[in-house]
């Protein structure tokens, strides 16, 4: 089985910035691929996803739980042919956890990423 990869799907340059941040913190490169919806209709975004996922397996980390990034990702997960799971509400914490835990199937890795990301959202003590 090919190694599990992450594809970050976002508006504007959020995805590129998250990949840069993960690399800066961990030194790990080549595991995450950024995809922006900039200038994309549904068809073009689907093509960018196909190129980023390749043969899979992959987890798609989408910025919002709706909108063009999400609908294209969910449609790709259903119809694209590769073993793909979709997570919404991507944040840096879930990506940092993901790059160190890629030895499970996409659905399981997606659940773990959601847990890691959710634990990072809190009101700081004042």
């Amino acid at each position, binding site marked *: 089985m090919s190694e599990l990869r992450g594809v970050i799907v976002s508006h504007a340059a959020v995805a590129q910035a998250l990949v840069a941040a993960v690399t800066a913190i961990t030194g790990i490169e080549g595991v995450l691929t950024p995809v922006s919806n900039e200038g994309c*209709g549904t068809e073009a975004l689907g093509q960018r996803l196909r190129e980023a996922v390749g043969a899979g397996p992959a987890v798609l980390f989408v910025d919002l739980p*709706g909108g063009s990034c999400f*609908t294209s990702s969910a449609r790709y997960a259903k119809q694209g042919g590769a073993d793909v799971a979709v997570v919404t509400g991507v944040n840096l914490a879930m990506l940092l956890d993901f790059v160190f835990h890629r030895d499970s199937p996409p659905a399981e890795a997606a659940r773990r990423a959601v847990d890691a990301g959710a634990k990072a959202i809190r009101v700081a003590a004042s």
Partner: protein
Amino acid sequence: MSLALYRIDDRLIHGQVVVGWGQPLDVAFIVLVDDEVSSSDWEQDLYRMGVPPQIEVIFASVEQAAAQLSGWEADPRVGILLVGDIDTAVALAARVPQLKRFNVGGVHHRTGRKERLRFVYLTDDEAAKLRQLAARGVDVTAQDVPTARAIPVTEFT
């Protein structure tokens, strides 16, 4: 007029529509007119996920939309009507003569299309269809977000 915006956008329901236009217009319902989506529960669920629960989403085919448009126009709430391509807009306008405006909000690159604006790519045939729509009395402008200028069809086709 209850439908505050008639929009052509190949992304259909997405951030610019729900937030960019939806917030300032205080939109309470979105009508998505698309023959394919209107016949797919799965696609409808996908598009619903991008919309806050207080906003109703109505899915309709072109025929259904033509039959129900006057009802949506009489709705006291504010709504947005979306179509995904120019052919659907033309088909709807042909069935509903009282439809007098269309906003081109996003038609993106595809083989055969040329860039007309940063967010509008059209084939020559699509550009001609928009001009024909305008010639029939429909106010056709391009505007991606409310804070941008509404660009008349003559400036981008």
